[in-house]
């Protein structure tokens, strides 16, 4: 019982910290993109200001909407993207709920925010939102393949190295970096898998060049067009947390090093150092896959994006799987 309470309390704490970090990262991202575009940009706390403002605003439900579905989906989106963080090793520590779920669960739960967004948009009854939701679903179907290939290859690798453990569990995956388990071909394979998971990021995060479901100049913010006030604030937070969650997932899969295991750090400071090092890693992943990319690309059309993910990125990840297979079987 005490243990359960302890778990609940620490989960709550982690969720609050994660939400805060996600919004700060969102603020930094906006500032950085602004600087790259030779603008001054908003202050870093702008996301907090925006959310405060949105919570004060009226929450409008269109006449054509199905209210319960329309109103519940933003909460589902935020909740599901926060829950993911409990299953992924976060901030240098093992995952809080690591005994209750593994990589497969995480991939499924990570799907929920996009799905909730699409369902909420369909429920709004607006044709702009409907088109946005269609696009969101098409995009989702095209990039999920890639993530499953990445998961399968890593699990295969770990199942051979640690035969007695659950290969999909994060405790196994983060026990040693995958890079140390493979030879030349496998190393190349891992690089390809890493690149393809980074390539999925813009679509997962709803950022350029794959912000197709929103596409401001085409369908006027698409899936978000009917949302306002509290619901929009929830979706905004869900979006920010989703980016953080996916970046943490990539970090957990490919960059599981802790600072305290790399260099000598006094015992008392090691947790803080690991925490900061984790934030740096996550931010690097976000910068490489989403912030920089969205500053230098135009928006793709949905068929172009789907083709890119199904053909280019999927083949890239399959090639990675093949190389890892060669490495394992040789």
């Amino acid at each position, binding site marked *: 019982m005490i243990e359960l309470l302890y778990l609940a309390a620490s989960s709550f704490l982690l969720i609050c910290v994660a939400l805060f970090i996600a919004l700060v990262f969102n603020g930094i991202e906006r500032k950085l993109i602004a600087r790259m575009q030779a603008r001054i940009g908003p202050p870093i706390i702008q996301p907090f200001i925006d959310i405060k403002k949105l919570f004060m605003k009226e929450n409008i439900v269109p006449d054509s909407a199905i209210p319960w579905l329309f109103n519940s989906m933003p909460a589902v989106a935020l909740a599901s993207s926060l829950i993911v963080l409990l299953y992924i090793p976060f901030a240098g520590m093992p995952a809080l709920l690591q005994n209750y779920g593994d990589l497969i669960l995480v991939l499924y739960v990570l799907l929920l925010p996009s799905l909730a967004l699409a369902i909420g948009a369909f429920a709004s009854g607006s044709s702009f939102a409907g088109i946005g939701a269609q696009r969101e679903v098409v995009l989702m179907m095209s990039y999920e393949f890639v993530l499953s290939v990445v998961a399968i290859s890593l699990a295969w690798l770990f199942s051979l190295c640690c035969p007695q453990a659950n290969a999909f569990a994060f405790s196994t995956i983060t026990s040693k970096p995958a890079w140390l388990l493979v030879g030349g071909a496998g190393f190349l394979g891992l690089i390809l898998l890493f690149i393809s998971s980074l390539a999925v990021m813009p679509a997962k995060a709803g950022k350029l*060049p794959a912000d197709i479901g929103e596409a401001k100049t085409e369908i006027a913010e698409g899936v978000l067009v009917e949302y306002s006030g509290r619901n929009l604030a929830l979706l905004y937070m869900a979006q920010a947390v989703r980016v953080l969650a996916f970046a943490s997932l990539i970090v957990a899969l490919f960059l599981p090093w802790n600072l305290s295991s790399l260099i000598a750090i006094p015992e008392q400071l090691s947790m803080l150092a690991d925490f900061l090092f984790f934030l740096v890693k996550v931010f690097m992943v976000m910068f490489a896959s989403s912030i920089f990319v969205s500053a230098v690309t*135009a928006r793709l059309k949905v*068929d*172009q994006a789907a083709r890119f993910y199904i053909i280019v990125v999927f083949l890239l990840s399959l090639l990675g799987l093949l190389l890892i297979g060669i490495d394992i079987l040789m």
Partner: protein
Amino acid sequence: MKKNRVQIPIGPIHPALKEPIQIEVELKGEHVENVSITLGHVHRGIEWIGLRRNPVQTLALAERVCGICNIVHPLAFCTAIENAANIKVPERAEYLRVIYAELERIHSHLLFLGVAAHELGFDSILHYTWLVREKVLDVIEYLTGNRITKAILMIGGVRRDITEKQMPKVREALEYYEKVYKKLCDVFLDDPTINARTRDIGVLTKKQALQLCAVGPTARASGIKKDIRQDFPYAAYADLDVEAITPDVLLNEIRGDTFDRVVVRVLEIKQSLELIDRCLKEMPDGPILYEPMLQRLLVQLRQVAGEGVALVEAPRGELIHYIRMEKSEAPLAWKIRAPTYANLSSIVPMLEGCELADVPIVVASIDPCIACANRAIIADKNAVLDQEKLHALSVNKTRALLKGGSK
């Protein structure tokens, strides 16, 4: 509306369009099946107001027809009046008019490139082109006193000269743009995402362009070598051998797609730079106004009976002003045909076979200026005007004009 079809209104208020025009798109999935365009949301009756003032007062109105082309509208208006009144503009003023008009073309094309990038979601390019555009606005302000509504043209010349002292700053700006031009070429010609979004999208064939009387860069991108500056030179353009720019200058082929329309405008920035440079070098000395005394000019204009037509190559294409004077204070008729009006109908064949995602960039690719194009309004919303009725109305209007009373 059939089943499986979705009607999407783009405009009059939509983030893709900065001005009110309604483009109703019928979609099947993401594919555009049908397009209809509705105008008339920003009709201001400028011509009507102009018929109640003397020409010099109306000049200020002509400047306010368009927020972007506020040199070419007064230029066309002045030229029309000068044609009607047989006023000979001093040669130096003709050159100065070319310089101002070309500065405006640079600013307008940079604005277009930014808007086009924004429609593609490429906001970094939007901010870059608009940052670069500041320089030309600064020069315009330095030379005329205003960034946007320049109030520099006058019937019979221009109001302000470019002195020898001002030259270095203009030259410096030209050099700056020489450098920027290379970067613009890199961005718009070689970027893979821009290519993916504009190549073979929104094709207007040469035949369609001719049938729909497309003008300006829209027509030139489809391979029609048509440019008022080349065909019917006004101001000092006859001395400057302007040549209409088609995309094959750079790409060796003409596809008439959105990409070509962007390329033509990028190339025209270069052309404008060269024209300004030549004008600065070859500009003769002399007066800049036909009649500096305003009252004497007005008295002379009051004696004029006759009509004047002016054709001017605006950044968006051929602009026509028609003026009829009948020995009175105010003109008897003033008619503006803005380039966007001629180009709007070519949106329909362009959008054929496009997807919804292409609609904003294809519409933006003719660089529509809706405020210019709104020159008529149907007061009775239920009235249906077919071709015959419209023709009859036009005939009546012309007859009334000939009789000398149409106010």
